[in-house]
């Protein structure tokens, strides 16, 4: 079924073709059946806010399609993007388990399909399915890993140039399966990239110009090509 946002909605987890590739959803049939009974499938347009930091946890959001921006915000409006979540991730997990408020704000970057599970249903689901409990522990471990990586990067990186170079190399590594891993589509604005590396939009624009001048990268519209990988790697601490 096609939603108004151009998404093909996957109605049932049992027949979902993507399930095998996703970390969380690839569960034994009886657990998927139980999940099927407690989830609410919803389609969101780009720019929809799933939850806001500080809000009491209502439940978890299993991202089936699309990307979601996870960020934290200060009282004076400054934003830091922690991660761009992709299909297969469970959002709002640690808050739903601990009962503490959501630590992050989740906003869709593309039209998304999300399966929402209410907190009390999710906690019961965990208690009754050991395999799900283990899968959740794995997902939380990944989240902890990401947070530690971010702490290291924020607390110990020396310059914005180093952090931008590191980010571009990480994106290219994620793009590893593509035919041309050094060529990628930039889907974030300079403002959003600045929010990812903890600097200002002006600094990101200046650094892109500088990287281009030094022939480290090439920018054609929204396509970025890494021209000198070794050069970028030199900017990053070994």
């Amino acid at each position, binding site marked *: 079924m096609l939603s108004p946002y151009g998404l093909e909605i996957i109605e049932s987890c049992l027949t979902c073709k993507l399930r095998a590739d996703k970390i969380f959803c690839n569960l034994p049939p009886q657990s998927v059946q139980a999940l099927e009974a407690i989830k609410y499938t919803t389609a969101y347009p780009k720019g929809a806010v799933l939850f806001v930091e500080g809000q009491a946890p209502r439940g978890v959001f299993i991202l089936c399609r699309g990307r979601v921006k996870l960020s934290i915000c200060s009282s004076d409006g400054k934003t830091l993007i922690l991660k761009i979540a992709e299909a297969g991730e469970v959002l709002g997990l640690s808050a739903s388990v601990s009962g503490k408020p959501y*630590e992050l704000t989740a906003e869709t970057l593309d039209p998304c399909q999300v399966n929402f599970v209410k907190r009390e249903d999710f906690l019961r689901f965990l208690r009754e399915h050991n395999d799900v409990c283990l899968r959740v522990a794995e997902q939380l471990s990944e989240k*902890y890993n990401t947070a530690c990586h971010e*702490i290291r990067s924020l607390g110990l990186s020396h310059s914005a140039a180093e952090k931008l170079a590191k980010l571009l190399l990480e994106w290219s590594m994620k793009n590893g399966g593509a035919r041309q891993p050094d060529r990628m589509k930039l889907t974030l604005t300079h403002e959003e990239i600045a929010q990812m590396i903890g600097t200002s939009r002006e600094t990101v624009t200046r650094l892109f110009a500088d990287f281009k001048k030094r022939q480290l990268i090439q920018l054609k519209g929204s396509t970025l090509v890494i021209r000198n990988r070794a050069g970028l790697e030199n900017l990053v601490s070994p």
Partner: protein
Amino acid sequence: MSRKHDLSATVLTNGPMSDGLFSGLPAHALRQLTGIYSAHHYPSGAVLFQEGEPASGIFLLCRGAVKLSVGSSHGDSLLLRSAGPGEILGLSATLTGQGHEVSAETTIPSHLVFIKRKDFLRYLREHTDVCLQVVESLSNDVHAAYERVRTLGLARIRHAHN
């Protein structure tokens, strides 16, 4: 450097650990536990594990204190927090099988219980109640880490805009 102690399973279910991972376990689960853990005493300054090192298992801190930190290749180090009695160390890396995200070092003489990764994963698969405690403990770790990201990250952004 460690000195093995003759310690019964009651250490894990009484005192600082009583509200934690192994609270309220049935007798057979406790017996099974006794067969897989080893108890150790560490002096101050002992390194339990280092960032990047593959996880060999989890440490349960019964007595003492352990500092958790991250480091850079320049030799700089950032203290994340100090762990106290009742906490589990090395949990996420043990679950994912990846390298430790942080380094752990005792700051005072400490008493710890160690469970090998393979034994711990098997134990978790067999005991949902322990697995639920693990999930809760990880959630708290994630919360604490995000809180640190907030402090560091927003301060950095403010600095960049000034």
